[in-house]
């Protein structure tokens, strides 16, 4: 797996040092960021910045069909620069405020699965981490969350849409890696160290110890009596499981989840 990538589009404070975590909501993205922040050279927050959602209008402006708009002056490469200047400004201010010694920034917004082309243009040198989780577990979790669809079938459709977006666009991201939630749960320390090594970050005993301390910490939990882990989809009713399979069965099989 190559880690070569184009250079940042301008002298960025986060050249080769910006990482983005995304995936369908309830896939473990918050927990992964919590683990990544074990490294002292990484700054970030478990809050979703929504920065690329916020830039959607600017991106649309840059692709107007009437010839007006910012592209008249920026051109394609310039759009990436302008968006990079904005994002770097946000990330640098956050880094300086919370982690002034860090040189990396990790951002997490699950919904950014729908913004990958814009992110590719803005951070061609970025490190993109997709967290993939069994769609049946995601559907159950989303349906129980206060912000998800109320039915597991609808939640499964969200999962399918999100995963397919990544499948469609990940080729645009030179530095892209996919990590499975189930593997992260089984070995959070080992999996996170693997990510650090992929990103070229040194891992010492201090980082290992911090990871070990963070690993059991549950985050983003909406029903604390259940604990964390894989396979909780088995608690769905038969009808709910049927509804989920109807929507996501094909993709689940493709990804190797159907038989588990």
């Amino acid at each position, binding site marked *: 797996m190559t880690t070569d990538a184009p250079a940042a589009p301008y002298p960025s404070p986060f050249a080769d040092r910006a990482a983005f975590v995304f995936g369908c909501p309830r896939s473990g993205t918050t927990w992964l960021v919590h683990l990544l922040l074990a490294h002292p050279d990484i700054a970030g*927050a478990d809050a979703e910045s929504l*920065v690329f959602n*916020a830039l959607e209008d*600017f991106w649309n402006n840059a692709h107007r069909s009437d010839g007006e*708009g910012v592209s008249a*002056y920026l051109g394609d490469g310039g759009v990436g620069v302008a968006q990079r200047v904005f994002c770097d400004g946000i990330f640098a201010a956050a880094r300086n405020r919370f982690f002034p010694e860090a040189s990396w920034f990790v951002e997490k917004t699950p919904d950014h699965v729908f913004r990958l082309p814009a992110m590719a243009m803005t951070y061609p040198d970025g490190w993109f981490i997709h967290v993939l989780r069994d769609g049946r577990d995601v559907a159950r979790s989303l349906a129980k*969350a206060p912000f998800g669809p109320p039915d597991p079938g609808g939640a499964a459709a969200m999962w399918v849409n999100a995963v397919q977006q990544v499948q469609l666009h990940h080729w645009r991201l030179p530095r892209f890696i996919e990590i499975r939630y189930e593997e992260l749960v089984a070995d959070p320390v080992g999996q996170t160290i693997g990510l650090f090594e992929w990103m070229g970050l040194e891992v010492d005993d201090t980082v290992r110890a911090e990871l070990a301390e963070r690993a059991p910490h549950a985050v983003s939990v*909406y029903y604390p009596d259940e604990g964390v882990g894989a396979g909780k989809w088995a608690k769905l009713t038969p009808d709910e499981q049927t509804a989920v399979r109807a929507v996501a069965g094909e993709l689940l099989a493709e990804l190797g989840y159907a038989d588990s």
Partner: protein
Amino acid sequence: MTDTLRLGDEYVAMSPLRGRPVFLLATPESGAELLLHALGELEGATALPVPTHMFSQGAATLFDRWVAGEESTRPQGMAELVDEQEFFAAVRGLTDTVLASAVGLDGDDRVMEYSKGHIFQTGVIAAIYPDADLVHVVRDGRKVVSRGVTPLHDWSAREGARRWREDQEAVTAPGELPNLHVVRFEDLVTQPAESVKSLVDVLHLAPSPADVDAAVAILARGAAGALDPPLPHPAAIVELLAGDVLEAYGYTLGDRGKAHRNARIELGVESAVLGAREQVNRVLHRLRDAAQRAQAEQ
């Protein structure tokens, strides 16, 4: 928000374009493009030929999403990461990049920009660019809407009147702005020489006499047909919906006549329809609530 918040001096000082931008703010058909063309003739001024729409389609959404998810159960939005000044500075970086791509960073030309939706974003512009000059071009709303109902814009008279009113109110909403200059289109085209001289002074330009003559000639050409009477129906609608705003900018209201009577009837019908629709929606909501309660109790 923008009544009291603006990009701080320390951040403005870091901008490579500090003190250079000039934003024209105007409802379409108010003469802003004519003025932009004229000002572009002056040495020391660069008029951007293509509207950027970067505030109406770009920065406005950034401000909307700045505090996102107030009703969300998970922490969201850039406000979780940075404070207002840092956010304003990041937006300034985005828009400065656009302007710098248009004119470059060398030199000290005033950079002049007009986009038709920017007048409604006056508060955002004033917050991000406290060092810019804002030129509000106002034209008699009756004439603006008379031109707006043509196929070029295809407004209804009511839509046009409301838009004109909301646009002018958007300029005054942020409160007193020391860098805001108001010019009336009618004065631009009937007194072009005085208008150009006045703008040269407030925008700190130093053009040659030939440049000034060229700018004056452009404004003077704009007078042709521009001061003809407005269409009766749009004029009546504007007077009914925005008469106070017309008078605030020095425009005299006309005599009430048949057009006003018809306009009052039209607005009355619209109001009744909207009122009826609201009533129906309220009943529907009550029925829906009752059904949900009944379901929950089962």
